[in-house]
Every structure is written in structure tokens, then in C-alpha cells.
């Protein structure tokens, strides 16, 4: 069994345990933070190595230029969120759709079809949001037209049906080598999205279907023999990311969020994701 499949199975077992044992929603923030800190952020914390280790990767002339570009993108994205949360969110969604889709199709098709990558990622995010849309409406109160939209006439079955229909239409209209397994895997995700809350859904998807498989690919690419040694390499930038989040919170805890912790976390993820996507785009080219 491939290590990537094993990673996804781990996520499935965890999510089924959450569904079966009836984990209280108050634990979802804790679960989210644990997964983000141990898998989510570390998978992007070796970007500074990935950018130089892959011969086909975007060529930065020096480490200095790499850091300059990388940090500038993080800062620019954070400022964008301050100026316009709507544009910040839109940019995050567009980029995430591509990035999530690109890594999701690995093992089912090559990553060269950019439209397919985008559509697969868009399907996953669409389902994640539609299945938790009421919760999302509460979180995104900084976007007035969405928060005021009346959703009371629709029930959750309707949103699941929309997600599955869009997925079916997407899958049949693309030339994918392993169409059925891809469809089947995303179906399991949809079931998890329906039965768990937004944070848990995102944590499970992001942790076990996206970040852990990428961490495994990075580990293999690095040719490291010791996984602990590899993991230690992710620590400096994971800690720096935490400090970045902390500084942002100390700067003004109400500026973006009106005490909305989830939105605050989304802003941090969005800012860290933007430069990471460009590095990963080259990394997964031949995967």
C-alpha cells in the first residue's frame, strides 16, 4: 500500500472515529490546532529547501531573493485582508482551489491539466463550504452580502446534492486516467464534510488528504533516511509561522476578526498559503 494512501486511510479512520464516538464540537478547535501545528504548517515549512532541491523548480538566484519574494507575498496578502476581506477571501479561494486540486489529482492523473486541478480543488472546497454553509455564514460576517443571504429555505441534503451533482458533472467532463478512484475518494470526503463541523472537516481534509501526503512526498524527495531528522527541518519555519500569527494577533486582535478566532486562523493560513502554492506548483510537476 502506498504511503499516500495510508495517510488518507489514517484521516478516514480518524474521521469515522469522530463520527462514531460523537466528539463534542468544542473539541474541534483543539483538533484543528493539533493537526495544523503537527502536519498542516510543517508541510509548507520546508519550502525554502524544496525551492532549491528540485532541479525543475522555479529558479531563485539566491536564498535572499527567495525569502524576499516569499515574505513579500505573505505581507501583501495580509494587507489585502485588512483592506478588503472580500478580495482576500476570493484570492485565497482561487489559489486554494488550484493548489488543493493539484495535490488531490496526484495518483489519479498527472498534474499538467491546470483546469482539471482547479476544478477538482473547487469541487472539494465547494462541498466543504456548502455542507457547513450556515456555520460559514456566521464566520464570514465581514462579508455583508454573504452573511445576509437567507438560507433558511434550503436544507443540508440540498447542499450535499448540489456538491455531488457538480462533482459528477466535473468528473465525466474531464479526461482522467483513474476517474473512478478519484470520484470514490472525493465521495468519502463529502460524507465526512457532511457529518463533521467546518473546522473538523477542514482539519481532516487539509491534514490527511493534503498536507501529510505532501510531507511524505517531500520526505522522499529529500532522500532523508531518518524521518525525525526530516521533521526537525520543518520546525524552524513552523515556529516562525506561529510567531507571525501571534504578532498579528497582538497587533490588533479585533482588526480583522471581531474576536472571530476561526476567521483569524483562515487569514493566517491564507497568507502562508499564497507563496507556498508557487513553490509546490513546480514540486508536483512530475508527480
Amino acid at each position, binding site marked *: 500500500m502506498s504511503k499516500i494512501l495510508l495517510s488518507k486511510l489514517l484521516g478516514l479512520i480518524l474521521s469515522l472515529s469522530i463520527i462514531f464516538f460523537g466528539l463534542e464540537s468544542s473539541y474541534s478547535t483543539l483538533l484543528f490546532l493539533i493537526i495544523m501545528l503537527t502536519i498542516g504548517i510543517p508541510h509548507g515549512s520546508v519550502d525554502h529547501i524544496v525551492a532549491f532541491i528540485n532541479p525543475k523548480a522555479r529558479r531563485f538566484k539566491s536564498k535572499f531573493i527567495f525569502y524576499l519574494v516569499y515574505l513579500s507575498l505573505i505581507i501583501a496578502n495580509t494587507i489585502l485582508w485588512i483592506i478588503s476581506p472580500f478580495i482576500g477571501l476570493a484570492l485565497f479561494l482561487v489559489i486554494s482551489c488550484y493548489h488543493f486540486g493539484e495535490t488531490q489529482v496526484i495518483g489519479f492523473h498527472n498534474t499538467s491539466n491546470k483546469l482539471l486541478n482547479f476544478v477538482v480543488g473547487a469541487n472539494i472546497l465547494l462541498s466543504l463550504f456548502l455542507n457547513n454553509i450556515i456555520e460559514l455564514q456566521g464566520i464570514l460576517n465581514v462579508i455583508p452580502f454573504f452573511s445576509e443571504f437567507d438560507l433558511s429555505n434550503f436544507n443540508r441534503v440540498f447542499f450535499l446534492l448540489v456538491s455531488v451533482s457538480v462533482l459528477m458533472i466535473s468528473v465525466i467532463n474531464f479526461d482522467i486516467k*483513474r476517474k473512478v478512484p478519484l470520484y470514490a475518494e472525493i465521495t468519502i470526503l463529502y460524507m465526512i464534510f457532511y457529518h463533521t463541523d467546518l473546522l473538523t472537516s477542514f482539519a481532516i481534509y487539509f491534514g490527511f488528504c493534503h498536507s501529510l501526503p505532501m510531507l511524505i512526498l517531500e520526505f522522499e524527495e529529500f532522500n532523508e533516511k531518518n524521518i525525525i531528522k526530516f521533521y526537525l527541518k520543518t520546525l524552524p519555519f513552523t515556529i516562525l509561522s506561529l510567531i507571525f500569527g501571534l504578532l498579528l494577533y497582538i497587533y490588533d486582535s479585533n482588526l480583522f476578526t471581531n474576536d472571530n478566532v476561526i476567521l483569524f486562523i483562515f487569514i493566517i493560513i491564507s497568507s502562508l498559503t499564497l507563496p507556498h502554492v508557487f513553490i509546490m506548483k513546480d514540486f508536483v510537476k512530475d508527480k
Partner: protein
Amino acid sequence: MLNFIFDAASVEPGDFTGFTFFIGSVSMLAATVWFLMQHGQVDKKFKDSMLVAALITGIAAVHYFYMREQWVLTQTSPTELRYIDWILTVPLMVVEFALLTGVGMRKLFWLSVVMLVTGYFGESGIVGGEAWMWGLFSGAAYFLMAYEVGCLSLFGGPSGAVGNALNKGGGKIADGGRMLQWFVLVGWAIYPLGYMMGTDAGQWYEGMSSIPLDMNVVYNIGDAINKIGFGMAVWYAAKG
């Protein structure tokens, strides 16, 4: 939140409907384990088929645990959970045909989208319109699917591309295919019946809901036969 491992409510003696929910959940779980075990035994080209068969019963097992819980605690029909299960598993059953025959799933997927969406519109009433009209659309999509997979060919009638490929399949594919065609023709036909019983108010088929038959029992038996049987038919074709 429901907790059916440590705090699961027990089915009361004499609660036959609750018992069928219980049987449904454990049989789906057992079938999932069986299909996963067989996944390693079949030829490489059938591995995806076995995995999908396990997935269908696995998803159903999760929802049957939920449904049993709701039934035991509230004695109300778990319609929403049932629909979630169907929305996720029906397209996967459709996929089995594509996997067995190699014929593209475009037509069957489109038809299953129409069948599910219109069926839901009719049951939920969220977009207005008469339930019989939505039921007609949904039923027409079901009929076209039955034609496409060759159900009519069981009686010497015409067949769509998938049915033709099944009938001409080598090994035990043709036998397995015939079982699948029977499942679609007979097994799936109970769902329109359930639809009519659930939406009969003010319709030309009013009175259907007064039939002295618990639809949950019919659905539970139907689901178990269709989902597990579907997987068994695929396994039968695969092991040949």
C-alpha cells in the same frame, strides 16, 4: 451529537423496524469487510470494482448506524439520512457498470444526476411544482438508466451501450451483469414506490401512504439487497 458506540440506544423487543435498521447496519459492515478482503483476491482490473463495492456498503453502514439511532430514540423516519446515503451511493453503483464494461459513465452519471435532483425537488418541495411531475422526470431518468444498462434485454428487448457491453462480456461478466440488471430493474423499483408513499398528499396517487406497510422496512430490505447484492454480483463477475 449521536454516539452509537458507547451510548447507543437499544432496539426495543417487538420493534421490527428498528431491528431491520440494526440488521441493515451490521450486514452492510460485514459486507464491507468481505469486499475489502476480496479486493486482494481478484484480478488487478477488478480491484477498483471491489473497492467501490466496499465503499458503497461502508457508506451505507455509517448511515444505517445513524438511522437506527434516530429511529430508536424518536421513532421517526430518518428521511434526511436516507437521502444522504442515496446521494452518495447511487452514483457509485452507477460507476460499477462503467468499471465492469469499460464503457464511459457519462450517460449514466447524467441520468443519475437528473434522477436524484428531480426526486429531491419532488420530495422536498423547495422549488414548487407538483410532486407527480418531478416524480415523472425522476422516473423517466430511472427508466432510461434501466434501458442503458440493458434491463430490457433480459426479456429480449433493446439495450443501451452499457447493457450491450455487459451481455457480450467475457468470463463471468455476462452472468454478473445479468444479476446487476435484475437489481436495477426490480431492486431499484422500490424507490419510486417509496417516493409515491411519501408525496401522495393531494396527488392522483393519494392514499398510497395508507398502505399498511412500514416503508422503512421496505427501504431497509431493499437497500440491503441492492447494495450488498450489487457488490456480490460484481464480486461474482470479478472472481471468474
